[in-house]
């Protein structure tokens, strides 16, 4: 029983971890808490459902959903970053919150606010290890997220683009002086962060088979918590944070009932903010190569 709950917690945690990585990438490089990330998660899930519903096979639907998220991320970049440089420090945050409201209500206006069932056309295949049940889509999601995060880490630490991003994280004015083309590099951050959140949304849609215009809020709030617990700007910390939140959530449901999930998760977050406000792995921020 406990073993099964740990498996479920890790699966849920990997979804939170992906969202947390998207948020932490934005905070770490741009120092910007991007509230439109939960919307990208929702668009990933809802667009996958919509394209499957329209008759596309699921791999094409997923690809099309990722393209939609890429375009949405570029629009967000224009209005929260490119045209807003030099504005008050809360302005990008406000605009990204407005984008969250905009995308959620756009989804409602287009598809209604009902819970939709995703029918991907493949049957749920489970693997059994002893008494533990692991769904194959879950396993693919978990492995896929680990591989993606590993690729991101390589990108940041080993490539010219990664070096440019780390320079911007240190000081964007200096980066400009050193010849980094900020207007070309920053949109990549938005698209990569959006893609991570969207991939989490796709995994969520295919695993739990349900999508909803407000699905991003619940997961997004847990993703923010995961990011803080791991230490903002630290990718591997976000993964640990995501897994911690996933496990706490599943164990809280198992032992105290579903009503106590939010108290447990956000109570833990509040305690960490009290005693270690910079998270469990503070100090390893983007600029110092901890990303």
């Amino acid at each position, binding site marked *: 029983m406990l073993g099964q709950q740990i498996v479920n917690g890790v699966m849920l945690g990997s979804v939170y971890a992906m969202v947390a990585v998207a948020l932490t990438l934005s905070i770490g490089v741009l120092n910007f808490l991007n509230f439109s990330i939960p919307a990208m998660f929702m668009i990933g899930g809802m667009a996958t459902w919509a394209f499957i519903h329209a008759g596309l096979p699921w791999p094409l639907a997923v690809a099309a959903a990722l393209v939609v998220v890429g375009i949405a991320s570029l629009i967000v970049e224009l*209005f929260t970053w490119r045209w*807003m440089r030099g504005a*008050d420090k*809360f302005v990008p945050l406000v605009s990204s919150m407005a984008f969250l409201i905009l995308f959620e*209500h756009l989804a409602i206006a287009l598809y209604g606010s009902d819970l939709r069932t995703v029918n991907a056309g493949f049957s749920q295949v489970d693997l059994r290890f002893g008494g533990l049940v692991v769904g194959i889509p879950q396993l693919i999601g978990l492995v896929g997220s680990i591989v993606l995060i590993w690729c991101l880490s390589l990108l940041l630490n080993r490539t010219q683009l990664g070096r440019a991003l780390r320079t911007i994280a240190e000081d964007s004015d200096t980066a400009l002086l050193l010849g980094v083309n900020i207007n070309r590099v920053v949109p990549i951050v938005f698209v990569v962060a959006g893609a991570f959140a969207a991939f989490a949304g796709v995994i969520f849609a295919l695993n739990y088979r349900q999508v909803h215009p407000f699905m991003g809020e619940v997961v997004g709030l847990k993703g923010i*918590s995961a990011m803080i617990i791991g230490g903002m700007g630290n990718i591997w910390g976000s993964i640990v944070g995501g897994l911690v939140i996933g496990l706490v959530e599943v164990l809280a449901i198992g032992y105290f009932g579903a009503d106590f999930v*939010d108290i447990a998760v*956000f109570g833990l*977050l*509040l305690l960490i903010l009290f005693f270690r406000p910079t998270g469990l792995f503070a100090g390893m921020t983007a600029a110092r190569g901890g990303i």
Partner: protein
Amino acid sequence: MSGYLEGILVLLAVNIVYAYGAFLPLAAGQLNIGLAGFAAIGAYSSAYVSNVYGIHPLIAIPIGGVVAALIALVVAVPVLRTRGIYLALATFALGQVVQASLLNMNVVGGAAGYPVTAFIRLPVVVGFAVVVMLLVWLLFTTRFGIAARAVHDDERVADLMGIEVRGFQVAAFALGSLISGIGGGIYAHHFSFIEAQYFNITLSITIVLYVLLGGTQTVFGPLIGAAVFTLLPELLRGSANWRYVVFAAGIIVLMALRPQGLITGGMLRRLFDWRDPFAKSPDAAKERAT
């Protein structure tokens, strides 16, 4: 007066009170996105003392505000050790914990909601809003307003000028929470019923949006922001589905065109040719130059 109009006016008054609750920390450069949590604390504690101990709403509502302010102090003092966005994140976590806890507290009805027996009419609601507004305006004519502005513009320079930066941030945050708690108490005692689901993150974010859209440079910003964005959606009621889409798109465009908010210090000076001590800031100077 029609019930509809009265409903809108009460909503407007409550939103204005919330907006001043969000304005105080924003004016000192801190973001409170757990405002709904403090409003919930104010609403539930004032409803509890007026229901159980029979205390008059005029006293119960400020008591609710004081409880919210005390909890804000408990949160702010440890978290403000760090700079940057951590207080905003702590308020976010606190808002979530408050909502989740209230949903599980059977003494105040849990998820079923909590009925409030005492009732206050529209004039009392408006009276509270006017008093809150006047007190904040008075506060910002004192040294407090200038210091808050200095902390908002540059914490380090404010520190060099001898301002107790952390003290001001904690004070602005606790006072803002007090006002949010009062807003919650007004809401509870007019609508006679509260439920934890109302005090969600969307409420917090919407209120912060009102203030930032109105502008944080002057004490008139929250009033204008709350008024415009409470009344504007009412005009858009015809297209219910697209209403929020239009609202959100409006915010994004407004932020792109006028990032300092609708009302700025420089604008007031041009209009009335007066000097608002609160508006002395680099932004205002830039505006004057153009």
